[in-house]
């Protein structure tokens, strides 16, 4: 899975606990036994991952469907 992330979504959000801006990092995304590394906005301190709405409802939903039909 290759996902081009729209970073404008992430720019406004900071980690509420750590009070730091998110950075882009490879994160393992998995479903139904398949997993892929994807660049995602992540809190550099606590590791909290942010899944923007556009990603969840767009590319992610598409990949979910493909994996469900595999």
């Amino acid at each position: 899975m290759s996902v081009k992330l729209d970073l404008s979504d992430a720019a406004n959000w900071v980690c509420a606990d750590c009070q730091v801006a998110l950075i882009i990092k490879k994160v393992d995304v998995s479903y139904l036994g398949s997993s892929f590394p994807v660049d995602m906005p992540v809190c550099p301190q606590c590791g909290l991952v942010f899944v923007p709405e556009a990603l969840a409802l767009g590319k992610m939903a598409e990949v979910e469907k493909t994996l469900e039909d595999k």
Partner: protein
Amino acid sequence: MIDFMDQKGLRELEARCIQDEAPPCQATCPLHVDVRGMLAALGRGDFAAARAVYQKSVPFPGIVSRVCDEPCQGACTRGQVGEAIAIRALEQACMQADVPRPPVKKLRARHKRVAVIGGGLSGLTAVADLSRKGYDLTLYEAADRLGGRIWQTSATTLPRELIAQDLALLSELDVAVKLETSPDLAAICQDYDAVYLATGQGEVHVDPLTYATDQPGLFAGGSLLRGHWSPIASMSDGRRAAVSIDRYLQKVSLTASRSNEGAYETKLYTNTTGVGASDAVPLPVLGYSAEEAIAEAQRCIQCQCLECVKVCAYLEEYGGYPRQYVRTVYNNLSIVMGERHANQFINSCATCGLCAAVCPTDFDMGAVCKTARSVMVQQKRMPPSAHEFALRDMAFSNGDKFAMARNQPGTTTSAYLFFPGCQLAGSSPEQVTAVYDYLQANLSGGVGLMLGCCGAPADWAGRDDLRAAALAQFQESHAALGRPKVVLACSSCFQMFKARLPEVELVSLWTLLQEKGMPETAVSGASDAIAIHDPCTTRYETAVQDSVRHLVSQLGYDIAELPRSRETTTCCGFGGLMVYANRDLAKKVVAQRIAESPADYVTYCAVCRDYFAAQGKPTRHLLDLIFGSSHDGGRGPGFSQKHENRARLKRQLLQERWGEMVTGAEEYASIRLNLSDALLALLEDRLILVEDLQQVIAYAERGGHKLLNAQSGHFLAQFRPNTVTYWVEYAPDGDGYTVFNAYSHRMDVGEGKRP
């Protein structure tokens, strides 16, 4: 249970759909000309294509298009509505097209010699067919010219140059023609590997299937054996004898799979309702002009079945018909590696059985899809997203928050048990109470109450295990109450219990209301027209349908019957969980249904009511008419509200009727949320419940992780209670929270960041 998991079962299933059977014209034509295809081409004005179709089956088209006795016409469906199509005249017309005879293609030489005795149409056809197959042919004719009886037709009917043109084929095929020769049969049989006696003369015994005589290698046919002259039947004799000779020389069975040779009766069904009667275009002596031919060809109704596809938006949506669909399903279930493209197709069927109700052979695509879903579940190949939300709803209804069973307050036995079902309780909880009161007042022996779900969603989802569990839960409570007679308001529950628990005594609420009379307050005296939508699960419950009509007219309404009602009623899109697998299609189904009549609708299923009303059709539940309703024909509650309605119904009833207190609500449930209408609509669309939002916020506020938007001050938090991650954007607001957005995904993101 349908078994299409093996090839044989599949083929039997395929054969039940008769859409691919030949139209009557083609079946009745002894050479099986694709008349329908030919007429379709002619109707478009494509004479060349029409001629090509014709020539494909007929070896001497110039001659035959003039002399054919057209038995096809007698079978033409057009004849039931006006005059049958002038098929032979149109064959003649398509021969106007300037298409050269396709170049002769001969198979590789087989070095076997075949003699044909008799140069009439039968012998000529055998010669043409066998020669193409690579045999060396010798044709003996006693007269000084070939063609036999065709010479007895007038030159106006059969211009002589057509004979010469058609017979030129023989030289192209290198056939040795011996005119004015009457050979000795015994000698010929010695000289050749096989002989076809096409004169129809002689004292030979002929097998009607294979045209074999008692003498190996000698075959016989031709019109004299038949008694009357039918040019096309003679040609069929020649063709069928040629098949036998080919098999004989290849040493394979003469008799295997020879059904449907010659004229036969087709199984194809063609509905002519709505086809306007018309007469044939008058035929001039010299034949049709191009324009006349096109007009006549356009009268062909292009016979086909598709009865089911015509009435089912789902079957129409995927562009095929059941015969093709069962193969698609089979292939999908057989895939070991690779994408299963038909998953959504299988899950989109409403399993409502309308197809079977209209099909001449009762083909039930719904049963096919239901079986397929069970198989997918067993194979662990069912896409989780297809039914999870509905199954979660069912689990809710059969869980603590809703499920309950009690004898009538103050009694210890029940003669009756009211089971309103999960959907009515979710949509109109106040009516459950009203009906329960009515039943207690009108039935003696005690009326118990059981809340829960019958398991229909599990059945539709192919989850046989969950269906069994739901039924077991019902059975246990039912037995504990002494197995009372069950009063059902929902037709899906009725169908489920009737099919799966035959030992349980059932009565429809509608039958009871008719018997006992409606409450005084009910009779409205309105004289408006109202159209009845029968829920699809009542398809074969004629008595229930009758009761409903009785009640509706007693209420003072004029019943406007929908074009499809009772046995041919349609589904609202909830059946089979279509709405979860294919929301757009479910919407289309509703849109089609609500457009069938300008009248307001009344139905007796809460889901049908809610779905129609949600798409703008004023629709009432029969209980709305009898007991009144808060939503007055308009939109019903959403998913979250339905959960809440069910839970509250149970709490209130237990408290008020049985004096029991219900405790143990989830802590998060007390979180107060401020939700705009737009947001509620969004949640409905995204299948997110208010309780999901509460859980996310509870988790985040208890110290879970969240994001902060520096500009808006909103928080964004996520929580994954099970298989779905929910994200909620919110901000504190007084003693609660305002929610701005919510979305979800199924993929699991980032390990270690879950509670």
